[in-house]
């Protein structure tokens, strides 16, 4: 009996291993790095004709990180608005969890099968979608990423909400002004893996090196995993570990909301300042009761619109995603593609008690 079970294990290991290993010789990271650097960069086939007419009857599919997420609901609705203004069709598909990478891949596969004209996707993971997106592109589908990028070779253009540099630096500036440029501060981020978050935090740290921030010190980066409870407890931990903490920056809409809710109901209300990225609807009551003075965000609806216009411009052949090409995004005006196919929406909006009443998203 034990012999049979042994056979079972050997078969299991052998079957998978031999096929895997015999297929190719061994390789290490350094050997493939060389191979990769000699390989050509992303293929930008065909040439752009900026004066080409906008094609009709296109279908642009939006694939957000998560459906039923209020933020993506607004941005995708923006995409819908832009597409119906152009007379194209819109559809939205996606997973109910923001960490279901496999699910997102199979949605890209499905859209490839359905031969949509373009996919606008917010990637849950920079690498995981690559194979599927490349298959989509080789089937003639244009791929635009928005909000969260993939590796640059796996899409034609990335519509960025604001440059990572602007966002990182401006949040530090905002908090600096409120704190009179003195005191300990901390960052409450989302997941440790979040590409966006990490690049913003990088610019925050860089900004803090400037002379006017000499008396401000970033003491800790905590991760709340975009989970309300976890963000809550991480905020508590920050305040307990650093009793002299004066300010918190939370560059995630879930984190800032949880931190605000905790501060609101604790002894730290008004004593520890909070800023970061949040939506006006989430933050309204905290701004009104004084827990939060100011925070910032781009307009997610405009982000979705720009993603839609970019997708249509790509599908119409007006752009290919190469640096320096320009296209018109309806009433939003003209945009120029930057390095590595990045299109930037613009500077973020700062919300405080004077203007928060004007926004509803």
């Amino acid at each position, binding site marked *: 009996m034990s012999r049979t079970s042994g056979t079972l294990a050997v078969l299991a290991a052998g079957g998978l291993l031999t096929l895997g290993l015999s297929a190719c010789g061994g390789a290490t990271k350094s050997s493939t790095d060389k191979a990769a650097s000699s390989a050509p960069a992303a293929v930008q086939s065909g040439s752009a004709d900026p004066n080409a007419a906008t094609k009709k009857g296109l279908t642009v599919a939006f694939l957000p990180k998560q459906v039923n997420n209020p933020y993506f609901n607004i941005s995708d609705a923006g995409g819908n608005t832009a597409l119906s203004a152009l007379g194209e069709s819109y559809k939205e598909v996606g997973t109910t969890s923001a960490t279901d990478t496999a699910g997102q891949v199979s949605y890209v596969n499905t859209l490839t099968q359905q031969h949509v004209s373009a996919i606008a996707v917010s990637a849950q993971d920079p690498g995981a979608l690559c194979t599927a997106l490349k298959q989509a592109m080789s089937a003639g589908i244009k791929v635009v990423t928005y909000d969260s990028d993939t590796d640059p070779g796996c899409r034609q253009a990335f519509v960025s909400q604001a440059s990572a540099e602007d966002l990182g630096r401006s949040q530090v500036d905002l908090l600096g002004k409120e704190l009179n440029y003195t005191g300990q501060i901390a960052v409450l981020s989302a997941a440790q893996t979040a590409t966006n978050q990490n690049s913003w935090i990088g610019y925050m740290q860089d900004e803090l090196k400037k002379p006017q921030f000499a008396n401000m010190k970033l003491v800790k980066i905590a991760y709340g995993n975009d989970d309300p409870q976890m963000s809550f407890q*991480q905020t508590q931990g920050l305040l307990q*570990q650093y009793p002299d903490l004066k300010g918190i920056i939370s560059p995630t809409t879930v984190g800032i909301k949880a931190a605000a*809710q905790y501060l609101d109901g604790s002894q730290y209300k008004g004593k520890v300042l909070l800023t970061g990225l949040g939506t006006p609807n989430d933050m309204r*009551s905290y701004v009104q009761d004084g827990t939060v003075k100011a925070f910032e965000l781009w307009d997610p609806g405009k982000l979705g619109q720009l993603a839609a216009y970019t997708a249509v411009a790509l599908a119409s052949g007006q752009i290919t995603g190469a640096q320096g090409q320009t296209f018109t995004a309806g009433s939003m005006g003209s945009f120029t593609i930057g390095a590595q196919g990045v299109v930037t929406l613009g500077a973020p909006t700062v919300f405080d008690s004077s203007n928060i009443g004007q926004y509803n998203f």
Partner: protein
Amino acid sequence: MTAPTTAAAEQQPPPAAGSARGLLDRVLRMRELAILVVLAVMLVATQIDNTSFLSEQGIKDLLLNATILVLVAVGEAVVVITGNVDLSVGSVLGVTAFAAGDLLKHGGNPVLSVALAVVLGAALGAFNGVLVGIGQVPSLVVTLGTLYIIRALDSIWVGSREITAGLLPGGYKTFGHDGVSAVPYLALLAAVVLIAVGYFLRNYRSGRECYALGSHAQAAALAGVPVRRRVLAAFVLCGALAGLAGALYLARFSYADAGTGSGYELTVVSAVVVGGVGFTGGSGSVHGAALGALLLTSINSVLPAIGVSSVWVEAIDGILLLLAISVDRVMALRIAGLLRSRARPARTGTND
């Protein structure tokens, strides 16, 4: 196998059985004491490392963090004691939190909205209980199915809507974080529920029958315990408490959307098992489950307070769970041995 003896013991407790029960009771209490000691050591050590940990605000936070988990764990413990499990609690918590918020948003009475959450939770619990009772299907499978179904129906109903702080009446939010000095109202509420359920399980016949059918359903049925009705009642209670927890979640976090409570079932099950409620049914207490919940949430507060990276949290939770069930098992084997060696002389003495 223990069920018939306990049932007999109730009618006419012979001396030997009485002392055996006393021993069991003492061991169970020791089990809870052990968690309490671990908890105390952990908190004191953290306090020494970081003196602001057990400030008034710090204690309040610890209690508030634990409240919601304690409530769900108490309900889950009753279900597990009957030898079942309810994996749908996270989905129930999510849908009831949103339902309560939806009512409040439209100007509903806060008390009414909490009641709505409880009733909705009880109804979903009844649905689970009926499925488990009718089909004689393992509750793990049934509630795995309803976990999917309730969550999906919830997200179809909720869509991308969310309940935010601005939509809730101020009093409801204040209730979520205020209290009598360091003791929050929510924790008081949880304590009342805990004491009531604990008293019921211990001092009522129907409560003890839950233990009986958990240790051996067939024997309990032969001894006259209405098995299906008791199981149904346990699921209804569990659902109702998950519903109450949903309403309190909303008060505490001032937020609910279609994803609220996702994955919560595993935390709840961990708390219950760490608290010494055996997965095989018929053993443990709701007080233990509550302590387990307090321990788990406190660890999540302790780690950031002493500056340990949050990447360790999940691994530590897992080790703790494994440790708890292993210790329980080893102790159960020891006690079984002890009881057997005690029962032998007693039997020869009374010659029965």
